[in-house]
Structures are given as C-alpha cells and as structure tokens.
C-alpha cells in the first residue's frame, strides 16, 4: 500500500540524484533545442548526434592528443559548435522560409548519417572515458553517498543554464537575439546582420549539446548511439516545456529528470514511459506546453 516503507532513503536519494543528472542533460539539450527553434524555426533532430559528437570529440582529444577532460570541456563545444555553424551555412541556411518539416527532415538525415559513420568506424559498443582525477571519489552525506563527479555535473549544468538564460533575457546581445526571433526582417533593417546571428545561434545551441556530451562521457560510455536513445526523451521534454521558452526548457528538464528518478523508486516499470505519459497529459490540457505561449 505504501511503497515508501519498502524503500530505503539510500535508494531514494540515489535515484533522485540519478534523476537530477539526467535532468541536467535534458535541460542542456532542450535549452539548445529551444534556442535553435526560436531563432531558426527548425526542430533540430541532429541534436542527439551532436551531443554524441561532443563526447567523441573529448575522447579523440584524449586518445590522439592526450588532451584531458578540462580542456575538452572548452574545446569540444567549440569544435562541434563550429561544425554546427558549417552545417547551418551550407545546408540549413538554404531552407530558410520553407516549411519547418524540411529542416526536421534534413537534420534527421544528418543525424542518421553521422551516427552511421561513427558506428562504422567505432562499433556500437561503448568506449570508456576516464573521470578527471580532481573529481574522483565522493562525499558521504550521512543519508547518501554523493560521487563528486555527479555533483559537479549538476552544479555546472545549472550554472551554464542560468548563464544562458541571463545572456538571452538580460543582455543587449540577448535583446538583439529576441528581436531577431520576433521580427527578423525589421531587426535586419536596423543594421543587425541577422544571418550571421542565426549562424552563431545555431552554433551556440550545438555547442550546448556538445558540452552535455563531454559531461556525459565519464558517466555513460562514449558510443555512437548515446544521443539517439536520449534525444527522443529530450523532445518529449521540449514539448512538455513549450518550444521556445528558455527558462521553461531549463525547469522542465530538471523537473522531468527528477520525476523519472522518483518513478524508478516507486514504480520502476513505468520509468521509461513516465515522461511520455506526462507529455500526453500536458498536450491535452495545455497544447502549447507548460511554459509555451499560446499561439
């Protein structure tokens, strides 16, 4: 009757922490998707593949150049973000003004090609990525054991999410970005190079995905399909939060990670579907999402 009685607090907090970790990745990924969707009106299905490339970029740096985790945390988002900008300039750019379905198809195709190439070269099984020495070990909090690396992922993700929110909502550059999202023609007529802004926005959203990939590398294994599994849930998160809302996608990401963790404790069978059940419920009650603006 009361499942709580059968659950130790140890297990409860362990699952909550796992939920929070997943939530951090959901938040980083759905934040990037929201930023990209707002500006380019493109549902970026390549996001999972770019997240995977972030993890691989870190792995490459380590194996071929002996460059470790901390530089990779900067270099991988830069490198993959740059690749994103090339994709935008050479391909997505040409779809501007067309039905968003074309962007969806193109990015989905890119994801399949990229994942296929990586799988061909590195196989489907994962490759381990070592945890940075600085973050090995953990803290005994009394009620639970907290691995340092996981604490770092949660804290760092929250910091990156809040910094992104601040940059978009509270700075001059962010105001320009919001203006270009609302009315690109007029923003351009004020002398803003909107096409360049679009390229940079896509690059930034992609860099967030790659950053999540580097953060994930020591926890999950580095595998070609690590993003493909993840991204479906992330899209559900985006739908629940409402496309285009910055704070909405951050909060929804963390919230749903926690809900998933709790479900694992109390009713494990439902853990993989709970996000989708919530998605259906939210769509029935608030079709624009929890934080979305009604069209």
């Amino acid at each position, binding site marked *: 009757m009361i499942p709580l009685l059968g659950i130790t607090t140890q297990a409860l907090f362990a699952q909550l922490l796992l939920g929070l970790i997943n939530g951090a990745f959901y938040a980083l990924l759905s934040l990037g998707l929201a930023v990209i969707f707002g500006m380019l009106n493109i549902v970026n299905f390549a996001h999972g593949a770019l997240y995977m490339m972030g993890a691989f970029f870190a792995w490459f740096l380590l194996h071929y150049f002996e460059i470790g985790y901390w530089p990779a945390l900067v270099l991988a988002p830069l490198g993959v973000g740059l690749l994103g900008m090339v994709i935008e300039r050479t391909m997505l750019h040409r779809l501007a003004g067309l039905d968003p379905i074309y962007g969806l198809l193109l990015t989905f195709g890119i994801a399949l090609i990229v994942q296929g190439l990586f799988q061909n070269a590195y196989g489907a099984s994962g490759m381990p990525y070592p945890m940075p020495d600085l973050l090995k070990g953990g803290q005994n909090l009394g009620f639970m054991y907290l691995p340092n690396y996981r604490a770092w992922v949660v804290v760092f993700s929250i910091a990156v999410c809040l910094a992104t929110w601040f940059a978009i909502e509270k700075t001059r550059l962010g*105001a320009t970005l*919001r*203006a270009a999202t*609302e009315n690109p023609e*007029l923003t351009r*007529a004020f*002398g803003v190079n909107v096409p360049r802004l679009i390229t940079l926005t896509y690059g930034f959203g992609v860099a967030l995905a790659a950053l999540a990939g580097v953060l994930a590398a020591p926890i999950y294994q580095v595998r070609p399909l690590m993003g493909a599994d993840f991204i479906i849930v992330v899209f559900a998160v985006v739908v629940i939060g409402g496309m285009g809302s910055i704070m909405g996608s951050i909060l929804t990401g963390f919230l749903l990670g926690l809900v998933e963790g709790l479900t694992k404790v109390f009713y494990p069978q439902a853990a993989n579907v709970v996000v989708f059940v919530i998605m259906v419920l939210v769509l029935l009650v608030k079709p624009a999402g929890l934080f979305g603006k009604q069209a």
Partner: protein
Amino acid sequence: MAEADLTAPLLSVAGLQAFYGESHVLHGVNLRIFPGEVVTLLGRNGAGKTTTLKCIMGMVGKRSGSICFAENETIALTSDRIARLGVALCPEERGIFASLSVEENLLLPPKIAPGGLPLDEIFTLFPNLKERLSSQGGKLSGGEQQMLAIGRILRTGARLLLLDEPTEGLAPIIIRQIGVAIGKLKALGFTILLVEQNFRWASALADRFYVMEHGEIVESFASAELAANMDKLHACLGV
C-alpha cells in the same frame, strides 16, 4: 525645386520597379530628396507608398532600377548594409518588439555613425518614454509605441528617416505631439521621407509633396503650392 541646383540629393530613386511574387507593385518610381528636406509621399492605400519605403530600406526581395543614397548605389544591398549607410525606418504598424522592454527596444538599433541624438534628447522629445522604460514593448499604448518607434531610430546616427504613417490610428493630441517632434528633427538637420494620408497635418511639416498612384509618382509640388493643387489632390486621393 531650387535646392536641386545647390546640392546633390541625399536620396535619388530612379526607375524603381518592385514585385511581390507575381504582382508588379512599383512601375518606375522616380524621386529625389535633398539633405535636410522633409518630403511627404501621398497616395491612396495600395498606391505603393509603403513598398517604396521598403525598397529604399532594402526590404523588398524583387526590386530593380536605381536607389542612390549618399552616392552609394543600394539597389542590390541587403537591408542591414543599407541601414549602416545611414537610412532608418519607422515602419507601418510601428514594429515594436513585444518581447523586449521599452529600453531594449530603444537601444536595439546599433549605432552606425556619430551624430545620433543622445537618450536625454529623445526623452525631451517624447517624455512618456522615460516613464515607461521598463515596460514590455507590447504593453504600450498606440501613441507610446509610435513615439518609441520614432525615438529608437534617432540615436543611431542615421541621416535619412523613413516614417511610414506615423499618425495612423492615433488621438489628435498625440498626432500634434508627433508633429512637434518631427518639426524639431527637421530643425536638427534630419532628412525625412514621410508617408502620410493626413496631408493637412503633413503640409505644416513638409517642404515638398510627391503623389503616388498605381505604383508611380504622378505629381510633385512644393508645400507652398499645396493650395493650388488641392483639386488634383482631391481627385488623386479621393478625399
């Protein structure tokens, strides 16, 4: 047009054609504006006034002919490049960004040249704006939105201001306030191309008038000749 002999025009439009998809909207527009002038473009709805402004601003995709601003041919330039040469638009429907605060709207257009109005002077022209700085753009009244739409293009250093129907849908007292502001801008040396239905109001500000019909300029006369052209105007504008 005595000025023509003294100085080169700041803006000179010749044989301007424009298309929206298949429909041919402008059929060879010719007009010239000299530095410091206020010129008003009159004409019925659909005559091509707004399209002319948008072409000058580079916002109409299919356009041909010649638009020369400050000795730069701009017909093939993108709107951001044209803006950086010193042209600024206050669009029809005002174009206030609802997701930006008044202050963000005001500071949005980047400075393109020295010589723009400092914020203090913009607030002297439009004191209402100063009180509403932190409001969201979408929450302003129509009059406040219009003041913001004009105010935000004054600090960039643009020399040619394109104002598209700045009095549309506004109360008489606000229209008067905007008239005073445009008069002050003229005194400050701004060159202004004004699209306006309300020609009695515009006649107090404008040096010259152009009248458009079916995508062409059909009349042009100085402000002093307005009375003599009243009959023709009534025929053209149907007022």
